[in-house]
């Protein structure tokens, strides 16, 4: 099945409109970044790399951060896929226990491959907190055993959802190698929020680590906070490779002749965190 989703409708909402939506969780958060204190993305607040992609962008423009990532699969095989990632990462992740991000997917193209059982997958906005380790032995920044919560927008090339719709998923992952390039969701560690979002929608993605109650909590806009618990015994101490970031992760199916494609462009607005994490 081949699915192409393209959206480019400009929906520009005044920031004041979001302020009027303020909900309970939002009241507990402070502005980490509004893209107004510098004409560029500030190096004392943000870093992050991009891997193995074609057209790639992480830049500030008109008081937004713009993230684009295009990845094509190989056109020499009908098996496998090629993935790429781009990170907008906070510089002091140990301090971040809550992260709320205004995001708008401006454009999304997903091309799968009929002959490849692997789909092309778009994750154009992921909000992640890597906070604890399960006690797996490891030295230095070895991430093996680290656990992170993630709230993410997701669409696959095989999706039967309406055009432009993205699922909102809350997931808890365990890192399976030192760089966390391999990870799996823990048992019962995935829940899909009831309301999808659409290309062009301006949304707030909220992720909170509730250490006391051994759970992550995710929320969309002013919707209810959705808890996702993990066994308390998994938290044996701080993660060895902590991160608190906004990421794009696109994977394109390989396909003989015409490769699979995932191309996404996302606009990031105001970012809020717990007050302790704010960098003046």
């Amino acid at each position, binding site marked *: 099945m081949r699915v192409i989703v393209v959206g480019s409708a400009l929906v520009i909402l005044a920031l004041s409109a979001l302020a009027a939506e303020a909900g309970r969780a939002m009241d507990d958060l402070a502005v980490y970044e509004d893209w107004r204190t510098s004409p560029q993305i500030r190096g*004392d607040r943000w*870093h*992050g*790399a*991009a*891997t193995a992609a*074609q057209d*790639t*962008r992480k830049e500030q423009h008109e008081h937004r951060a713009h993230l684009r990532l295009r990845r094509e699969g190989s056109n020499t095989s009908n098996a496998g896929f090629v993935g790429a990632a781009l990170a907008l990462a906070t510089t002091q992740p140990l301090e971040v226990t809550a992260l709320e991000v205004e995001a708008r997917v401006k454009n999304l193209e997903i091309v799968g491959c009929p002959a490849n059982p692997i789909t092309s997958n778009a994750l154009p906005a992921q909000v992640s907190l890597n906070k604890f380790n399960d006690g797996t032995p490891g030295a230095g920044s070895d991430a093996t055993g680290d656990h992170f919560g993630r709230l993410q927008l997701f669409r696959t090339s095989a999706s039967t959802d309406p055009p432009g719709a993205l699922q909102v998923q809350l997931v808890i992952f365990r890192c399976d190698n030192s760089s966390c390039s391999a990870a799996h969701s823990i048992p019962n560690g995935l829940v899909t929020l009831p309301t999808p979002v659409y290309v062009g929608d301006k949304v707030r993605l909220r992720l909170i680590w509730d250490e006391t109650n051994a759970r992550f909590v995710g929320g969309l806009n002013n919707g209810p906070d959705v808890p996702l618990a993990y066994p308390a015994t998994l938290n044996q101490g701080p993660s060895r490779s902590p991160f608190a970031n906004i990421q794009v992760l696109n994977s394109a199916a390989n396909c003989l002749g015409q*490769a699979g494609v995932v191309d996404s462009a996302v606009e990031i607005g105001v970012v809020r965190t717990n007050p302790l994490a704010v960098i003046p």
Partner: protein
Amino acid sequence: MNTTTRTTGLLALALCGLALIGPSWAQAVEPFALYEDWHGADYMRGDRWSGAIDSMPEFRHAVHGHKLSMHLRSEGATAANAGTLLQHNRALLSTPTLVTQLLAEAEVHRIEVIGCAANPAPSIIRAVALTLNRFSDGPVPATPGSLVGDYLARLQLVRASNSADPDGVLRLQGRLFHCLDAGCIATTTVAAVDFPDAIALGQRVQLQLIWDAPNNQFLVALDNGALQPLPYPAPANARPSVVPLADVRQSGVTANCTTIATVVDAEAEIGRVFTNAAAVVP
């Protein structure tokens, strides 16, 4: 010494382009063939290009207006007045083991380089650079992914924060580096060529980098000027490199500084890219 250069080059593409009639065919080891003109798609073709960008605040490589538009911005660390941070924004040709010749049309639009008075190491922006990594004399068996022993040939448009040149001026350098560590952060310089002419912002240039393997040298040239050799000892070419590379990139070396925010920033456009015929992806 702190030097800040913030200059926006004039959009002189059209005027300069009229004067560029093509690669210097007569001087090449073999005729150049068109690898990319950015007209076949409004994005980077995955069968011709990939990318890799190190961690930094801002970056871009994307097709815009039939050019590859590139941007690198990095800021230095603030914990010390010693040391530097090296970062790259790479557009990688997909068939590096087939590339023996690389020519790119390039134009630098803007640069910003801020060094640190208390750090003896300057900040350096390489606004556009061509790289070929084809052979190695490193240990056998080689460590996968390690550049130890590899030889990186590079032709680069450079500006350092301690430059005495007027604002808005870059210099063109040919370099052959021998990699001493896995990431090729530590190197020795095997051969060097410094071109005499200053390159201005907004000036469209052709950069040529050629591997002349039979004569144990790389050749570099600016526009249709004479090819300049970067020789190496024959035993250096002991085996193919572990990490073959053929790329167009930007690099930034940012001086660490406790007192100010050091910066390297460059925006550039890449026009047509030519290679030897065998490397062309139809």
